[in-house]
């Protein structure tokens, strides 16, 4: 019963986080509708997030302990590139929630029990972006966004979702190891994104359709 209540509390916590994001956005008059080009860019990034993760699902990522590290590198890199390319409130939600639903559409089947997980990751980053400004022009800001998403994602997975949905229970040291490996992956992914972002931005700025 404790896990059920933990999960339900996380959903209520999520509603509060969504409320904070919405109120902050409205107070700052930050919300603007997405243009078609921005939606298309987000769609492409969702597709790339999916492509970046799928090849690892049968290989090395099945090795206990390594999975978090392997998944988080490409995911964080593409996610942060997305935040740089479309610096608008809501883009983190579109990317994280969109990739989650896209993955469910193409492989695992629609399962709403997972939606709070995607939304928690997204809301954490949205709040962070409101705090630092939406530009992510410095490495520490990028590291903050990348590591925060990873921290929320891996903590929520191994402390709430895995025990509640799958009934997977691990020794605490192993959970700590998995979360740490995920964080290391996020840092590597952030550095990759930091190096790639100027090249990609320059190329897209000067390219014609």
């Amino acid at each position, binding site marked *: 019963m404790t*896990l059920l209540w933990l999960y339900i509390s996380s959903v209520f916590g999520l509603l509060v986080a969504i409320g904070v994001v919405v109120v902050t956005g409205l107070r700052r008059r930050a919300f603007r*509708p*997405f*243009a*078609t*080009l921005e*939606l*298309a*860019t*987000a*769609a*492409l990034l*969702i*597709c*790339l997030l*999916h*492509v970046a993760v799928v090849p690892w*699902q*049968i290989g090395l990522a*099945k*090795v*206990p302990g390594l999975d978090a590290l392997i998944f988080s590198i490409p995911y964080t890199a593409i996610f942060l*590139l997305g935040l740089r*390319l479309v610096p608008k409130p809501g883009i983190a939600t*579109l990317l994280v929630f*969109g990739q989650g*639903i*896209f993955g*469910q*559409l*193409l*492989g*695992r*089947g*629609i*399962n*709403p*029990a997972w939606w709070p997980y995607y939304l928690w990751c997204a809301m954490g980053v949205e709040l962070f972006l409101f705090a630092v400004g939406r530009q992510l022009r410095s490495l520490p800001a990028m590291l903050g966004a990348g590591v925060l998403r990873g921290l929320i994602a891996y903590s929520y997975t191994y402390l709430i979702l895995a*025990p*509640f*949905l*799958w*009934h*997977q*229970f*691990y*020794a*605490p040291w*192993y959970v700590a190891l998995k979360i740490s490996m995920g964080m290391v992956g996020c840092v590597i992914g952030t550095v990759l994104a930091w190096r*790639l972002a100027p*090249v*990609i931005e320059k*190329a*897209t700025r000067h*390219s014609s*359709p």
Partner: protein
Amino acid sequence: MTAYFDRPSPVHALDPRVKIAWSVVVSLLAVVLGHPLLLGVLFALTIVPWCLVRPPLARLRLLMVLVGTTVLGTMTSQGFFYGFEPRTELLTLLPGLSLCWEGVAYGAIVSLRLLSVLSAGALVVFTTYPSDLILALTKLRVPHSFAFMLTLALRFLPETVEQGKRILVAQQLRGGGGRGLSSAVRRFRLLVVPLLIVSLRSARQVALAAEVRAYSSNRVPCKDLRFASADWAVMAGLVLLTTAGITAALLGYGAALGGIR
């Protein structure tokens, strides 16, 4: 691996919303049920619709690989990193890191849960055209711009894979081949930037085409979803199944947290 497979079958003919409900019900029961026998029955139930679909052998083989690695990975990780007592050690790798029987057995039970959810979810994807799933989501009040974005992502998927292959071939023709881990990392690094740039350009073209054709969120879909009698019958069955599962959990056959019944 679990992409849409076109074949006339009773499962294909069901409304996508019913199939989504099936996936949700199985996920719910996998959470609330705990007795291995009941979890086995749940997994067996998820296999029944697959018999109606009769997937081709090549796809089945791939699914079996996925199932095998899932079971093996879960049993190994639970076997080594099981956090409860008692622990009967079977094999010691390092001091403090040993494979225990209770963990392996618990991993097998957890695998039944994972496989039930995987089987139900994969069936939805295998028997429903992706755009129909998106239409079902729109019917379930998902915002239209979000559905539009998912449709575009589906359209980009084969194109992105194709672009990636094309770039790799071009690099090989220019002598960029080679074996080993270091050359694989180098190839990957050389692939990422052009792939991203070409894909973003393609996204621009699609956005421009959509705007030229006056895309707006007030679109009326050309296809509509309606429940047939078979859909209502399956929904009634799902309600019964959920009631039975929750009753079994309340009667003491629910999930045992970390223990083996």
